[in-house]
């Protein structure tokens, strides 16, 4: 989302930053952008040069004694640099590791000087608010979260893309009205908000108006404004594992709860999705998750257990099915599913036997085939190939 603002309207960010700089009396600003967004970098560079030409940046702006300059700094693929103190370290040329707060950047920031850090979307909002007044801005959105918010809608919805809605719009409106509902007429299962460490929200809460507080109350967060829609074919423990893998990889390793705790959580999830876990593991996972939340140094670690804790809370049955019955209700976890051929539907076309990479399928032409469960590696090739719907996934 920030990428599209920087690509589409970089001047709005420059203007917002210049106004903010004027307000706090700063003379130098930095924009930290992911190196993975080359177009955004190029356009922002252009825009900065244009602004300098017009005297909107640089020495004595508009003939006043206020001077302000902007520089671009590239990120290098470290998610944790979204954390403000890590971002500052990165600009200074160090590994992007967060530090304890206080002191807050506003007191001691870049090179030890007072610094304010804001998100692209925030800066882009400043000029319109100055022009139309705070009252106008407050007339949008909710009491506690005024204004609008841009969400990046993705996943199993028909219309994916960026959506800007007033705060307080319900999840249902975003997903079903704007998003056009779930793909292939599948059933909605959950929506994950706030980026990799947000939580998953189930169908019961679709009518919740979205703002900062309601999302937090549901065990998720506004975060980056990401909104990933999941349908009935999504396995919640598997999703939690996916998000946690991300956090484990992106943990900077500075503090123990995040560096080691998340690895332990991941191991437990692995046990769950491969059918080796016990009910004690679930309990332990919950306690550990809460401990990490309370004790990690920065936002990354403090939120990384969210996907687990929220899915364990809202989709308890699914976890229990994996642990007690050793089944994966959504049919995702390989170790827990079996492919079987329905004798009545199989016409003996031999297509499945030919695609099976391990020759687990036997049977003669025009006669029902059979899968040898001992040999089957559960790759699903036969399932994808059969044109008669004769292969069942259980």
């Amino acid at each position, binding site marked *: 989302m920030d990428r599209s603002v920087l690509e589409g309207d970089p001047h709005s960010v420059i203007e917002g930053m210049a106004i903010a700089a004027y307000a706090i009396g700063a003379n130098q600003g930095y924009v930290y952008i992911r190196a*993975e967004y080359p177009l955004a970098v190029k356009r922002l560079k252009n825009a900065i040069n244009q602004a300098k030409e017009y005297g909107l940046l640089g020495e004595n702006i508009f003939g006043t004694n206020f001077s302000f300059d902007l520089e671009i700094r590239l990120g*290098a*693929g470290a998610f944790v640099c979204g954390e403000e103190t890590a971002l500052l370290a990165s600009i*200074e*040329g*160090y590994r992007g590791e967060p530090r304890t707060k206080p002191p807050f950047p506003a007191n001691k920031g870049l090179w030890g000087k007072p610094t304010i850090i804001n998100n692209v979307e925030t800066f882009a909002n400043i000029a319109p608010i100055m022009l139309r007044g705070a009252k106008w801005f407050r007339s949008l959105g909710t009491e506690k979260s005024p204004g609008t918010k841009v969400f990046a809608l993705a996943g199993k919805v028909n219309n994916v*893309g960026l959506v800007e809605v007033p705060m307080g719009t319900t999840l249902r409106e975003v997903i079903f009205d704007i998003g056009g509902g779930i793909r292939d007429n599948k059933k909605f299962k959950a929506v994950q908000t706030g980026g990799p460490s947000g939580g998953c929200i189930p169908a019961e809460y679709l009518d919740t108006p979205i703002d900062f507080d309601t999302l937090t109350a549901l065990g998720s967060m506004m975060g980056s404004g990401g909104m990933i829609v999941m349908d009935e074919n999504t396995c919640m423990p598997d999703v939690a594992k996916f998000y946690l893998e991300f956090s484990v990889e992106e943990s900077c390793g500075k503090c123990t709860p995040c560096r080691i705790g998340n690895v332990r959580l991941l191991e437990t999830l692995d046990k769950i999705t491969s059918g080796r876990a016990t009910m004690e593991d679930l309990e332990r996972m919950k306690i550990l998750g809460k401990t990490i939340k309370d004790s990690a140094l920065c936002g990354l670690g403090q939120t990384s257990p969210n996907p687990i804790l929220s899915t364990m809370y809202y989709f308890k049955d699914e976890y229990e099915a994996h642990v007690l019955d050793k089944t994966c209700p959504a049919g995702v976890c390989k170790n827990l599913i079996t492919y079987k051929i329905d004798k009545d539907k199989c016409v003996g076309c031999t297509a499945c036997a030919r695609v099976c990479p391990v020759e687990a399928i036997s049977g003669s032409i025009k006669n029902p085939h059979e899968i040898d469960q001992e040999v089957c590696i559960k790759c699903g090739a036969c399932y994808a190939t059969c044109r008669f719907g004769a292969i069942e996934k259980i």
Partner: protein
Amino acid sequence: MSVELESKFKQVEEYIDSLNLEGKDKVTKRSYLIHVLHKAQEIIGYLPIEVQKIIAKKLDVHASDVYGVVTFYNFFSMKPKGKYPINVCLGTACYVRGSGEILEEFKKQLGIKENETTGDGLFSIHAVRCVGACGLAPVVMIGDEVHGRLTTKDVKRLIKEYREKDK
């Protein structure tokens, strides 16, 4: 060291000189480290130890500090990549639409693991984070080209396409 590599190292040195940091204080020099590493990777394709040492010297930073920074950030690589690096997006939007299976298929077809390069130096496979094209999920970037809405069935075709391109 090959002549080609050496001339690239020269380019990196020249670039650092062009920044006019001579005589500036340590803190200022250090703040150019990541910037210079980006440039060096752009020129050489990766960041071998030798170039890290050159950068360290020029920016007045300890070589181990440079190494620490290079290994911290995912974007920097100390190994040369394939001529066509295959970057499979494992961002959430792509993952829920099956990019994990596409990654597996590439590994299977090319017989290499993540971050490895094929024997002929043509392909290397990497898992990347959201490349900002979620609307096209699942997305694979090969070199600078984005391929979207893929299924595992497209994998063979893509590999063939790039093999032919190289002939």
